[in-house]
């Protein structure tokens, strides 16, 4: 960035820590951006004339006489239709080295939508994956993360979901993305001929971790432009939010804040909520739906990051390797979509809620039977049938490589019920059973 005329240049830094610098300056606003040498920094604390800045790229190599110039404004993103099809870094600068885009500069991390102006989400987002559409239906305006172990194919599933979801725009916020995964996303979007619908803000593992903190706000500012100004249905993909939270922890640690659970800052809940709550169904028909990834360590969901996320998001999707069928499935027990009640049986066939519950209940019976089997007990006839049902259910419905319509999913479920159980065992409202039972 070039210095404008009359802009004051400070050349004496008092303190330098790993991530922050402190200097004496006046007339500085909170949250304002500054350039420190060739790096970007943001004001995080002001005490009298002492201003503390967080240097996104780290302070390595900075000297006490490095030039500091304040921009007089918080981080901004230029928004216009020209965003579509472009790749940006965490500061909103074009990655491929192209021209900066023209458009109105907007502050990122802007105000909250008045809850009274929101609409109740009611539009189903079909993905073709039964573990989602049948058991955990996603609705536009929802926010839902995948809880996955690092070795699971979450980015692949997320890309599939994004492309099938029929969104007007897909905004990818990549945080700590490996270069390989970044190229994968780029390629799969390109192959699908969808590049013109996609905007990406990417911080890869090559970039400094603290820069990641800007990515979700950049992505959501772009999303708000398309949803609010243009009335479009926008899908935002955020991967991986665990790495985002780790960056928060690094910053709070360097600011000498007292850590709470799992070394995370005490404000983790609010910090994450500020991002996820941008998901919204707007009165103009536009919407922002957020699908995120939170990687777990060893499947532990009691860790502060997945735990706080679970309390904020409207459900979560777990991926699991099913050892019986050798396929990756969406776990029916631990996954949940809180908004599914708004669409199932209303926008989908009337039997959807009951069929979904019956399937999961019978699958749970199979899990009990399996435990019995592993403990060396004899299986009853019912146990055997439940186990067979579970195998079919897993292969024909839960597996993520299945791509079918919801009605088809329901029909398959009824076929499986009739194949293995009596009506009493399936325990579905009588009038539905009479109508749909596959004799």
């Amino acid at each position, binding site marked *: 960035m070039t210095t404008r005329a009359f802009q004051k240049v400070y050349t004496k830094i008092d303190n330098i820590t790993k991530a922050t610098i402190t200097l004496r300056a006046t*007339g*500085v*606003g*909170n*949250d304002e951006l500054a350039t420190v040498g060739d790096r970007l920094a943001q004001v995080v*604390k*002001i*005490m*009298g*004339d002492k201003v503390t800045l967080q240097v996104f790229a780290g302070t390595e190599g900075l000297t006490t006489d490095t030039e500091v110039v304040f921009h007089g404004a918080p981080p901004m993103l230029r928004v216009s239709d020209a965003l579509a099809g472009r790749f940006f870094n965490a500061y909103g600068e074009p990655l491929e080295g192209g021209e900066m885009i023209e458009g109105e500069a907007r*502050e990122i991390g802007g*105000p*909250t*939508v*008045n*809850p*009274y*102006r*929101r*609409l*109740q*989400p009611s539009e189903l987002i079909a993905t073709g994956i039964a573990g989602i559409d049948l058991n955990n239906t996603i609705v536009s305006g*929802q926010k839902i993360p995948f809880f996955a172990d690092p070795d699971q194919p979450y980015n692949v599933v997320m890309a599939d979901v994004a492309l099938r979801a029929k969104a007007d725009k897909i905004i990818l916020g990549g945080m700590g993305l490996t270069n390989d995964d970044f190229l994968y996303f780029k390629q799969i979007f390109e192959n699908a001929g969808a590049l013109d619908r996609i905007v990406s803000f990417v911080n890869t593992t090559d970039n400094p971790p603290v820069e990641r903190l800007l990515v979700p706000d950049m992505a959501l500012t772009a999303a708000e432009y398309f949803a*609010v100004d243009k009335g479009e249905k926008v899908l935002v993909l955020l991967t991986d939010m665990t790495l985002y939270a780790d960056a928060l922890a690094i910053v709070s640690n360097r600011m000498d804040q*007292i850590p*709470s*659970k799992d070394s995370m800052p*005490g*404000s983790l*809940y*609010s910090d994450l*909520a*500020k991002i996820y*709550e941008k998901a919204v169904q707007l009165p103009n028909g536009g919407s922002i739906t957020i699908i995120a990834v939170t990687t777990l360590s060893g499947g532990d969901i*009691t*860790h*502060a990051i997945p*735990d706080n996320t*679970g*309390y*904020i998001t*409207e*459900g*979560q999707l777990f991926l699991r390797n099913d050892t019986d069928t050798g396929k990756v499935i969406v776990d029916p*027990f*631990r996954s*949940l979509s*809180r908004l599914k*009640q708004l669409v199932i049986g209303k926008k989908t066939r009337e039997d959807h809620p009951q069929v979904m519950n019956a399937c999961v209940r019978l699958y*749970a019976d199979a899990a009990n039977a399996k435990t019995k089997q592993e*403990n060396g*007990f*004899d299986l*009853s*006839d*019912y146990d055997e049938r439940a186990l067979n049902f579970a195998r079919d259910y897993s292969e024909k419905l839960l597996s993520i490589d299945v791509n079918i319509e919801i009605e088809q999913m329901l029909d398959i479920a009824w076929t499986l019920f009739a194949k293995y159980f009596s009506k*009493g065992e399936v*325990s579905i*409202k*009588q009038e539905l059973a009479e109508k749909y039972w596959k004799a």
Partner: protein
Amino acid sequence: MKTLGRVNGIISNIVIAKVDGPVGQNEICHVYCGDIRMMAEVIKVIGDEAYVQVYDSTRGLKIGDKVEFEGHMLEATLAPGLLSRNYDGLQNDLEKMDGLFINRGSITDPIDFDAKWDFKPLAKAGDKVSAGDWLGEVKEQWVMHKIMVPFIMQGNYTVKSVVAAGEYKVTDTIAVVVDADNNEYNITMVQKWPVKQAIRCFSEKPRPSRVMETGVRAIDTFNPLAEGGTGFIPGPFGAGKTVLQHAISKQAEADVIIIVACGERANEVVEIFAEFPELVDPRTGHKLMERTIIICNTSNMPVAAREASVYTGMTIGEYYRSMGLKVLVMADSTSRWAQALREMSNRLEELPGQDAFPMDLSAVISNFYSRAGLVKLNNGEVGSVTFLGTVSPAGGNLKEPVTESTKKAARCFYALSQGRADSKRYPAIDPLESYSKYLEYPEVRSYLDEHIEKNWVDAVYAGKTVMQRGKEANDQINIVGDDGVPVEYHERFWKSELLDSVILQQDAFDDIDANCPIERQKMMYNMVLDICGKSFDLENFEVCSSFFKQLIYTFRQMNYSEWKSEQFESFRAQIEELVNSKLAK
């Protein structure tokens, strides 16, 4: 003259202001960022520096910016016209705000100051009155809203005059009272009260004795909530806290319901906004929204106002209680409020307690819960505030500080269990962990004797024993195997399954099953308990399980059927027949 200050430090939403005059702890002030005027509260004073928490984002704020101190604490505006409004945590009416976004410094009136109310006097000249006494009333929705001597007026007064019945604005003087020294005070229909202080204008606070019906079987039958009582619902995410709270807010037998959405998801509030104006309260035939006030500080709204929201809700609850009404205040979730306290305490660099929460967390929570209760007003009428909070324990661990502190303060404990939620047994209220202390109250026992049936509490304990024995039997079966235990063990287990499936589980999304009136609960519970008391002739465990599965299936259909309809009675007959076919000779 107002005390003024200048910004001298900014750490996130904490601002340090150098002041030129006196400031009070918890005093409200306004911080000016350009032409934006943001509300803030003093939380610490050191020398001439006041530490204030700003109820908004401090982005762009600069050293030297103006701070104006208001000379009072955070207050709620109390007047006719509060019902069916949607407020933020500081009592700004969200509906009146312009635009899609909530811009910084947005302020709207909590009530409509121009509206006219049809006032009827209740007091007359010469009456001796004190704070909280009724001077008149207006009809607000279908509630008789009493106009009271303002709560801040200490001591005794004599009514000098009351206006005649007629239409008045809330700011019109409706009465004049005089104190012992003959000073006159004009009284209007609007008053203010500092939210962090309890309203204590009543003569006594007796122990709760009546039960508040919620239509949720696992609560009403198994662990009843007393009117004027307190309860809390801890549960890991996905266990159904919010669904349960919504069910209660729709069905509870209360005159006024105050829902505080504290640091939770906006879409959950939107659901209430969308549904409540449409839904009808079956007890009164009125729209649910007419008796509801929503205080909404969702998780992305300013953290500092989150703390204020629960106090604002409670204060409005106490106000309606003083009119002799039955009020239910619900807060989802009090953990978010505790987290807000933690964020503040952390920024003030206080020494932390467990999990970095402030040391006085436990005292703050129990102080808040103690504001609920049944009260006898000065005129002998009875009013109540029942408080039900949810807690979101970190990692689902019930040993964390917020849950532990709340357990000390609340009398009912509705533990939502992950295991039950995973197997879709909703509501996931754990039958063995949960309790209601009110079952131990002799007053409650005699109330239930009279209102449900004689010895009802004993029947409830009998049901709890069935659940306990069923669990023990199941543990045995899991250790030794189906064949390894006598068939009685299976029978015992399946009886607990019957009770669980028919009484404890309830389909919140089914029009009929969602709300189960107490009459129906009584009948179903007695039917199930009767079966649990019988012995059956079941040759082996497979016969046993299929017999009970059939029974559960038929009972479920009964739960889905219209009360005492033909269908309902036919399922009942089927059950009877089924039971008789296997009765031990």
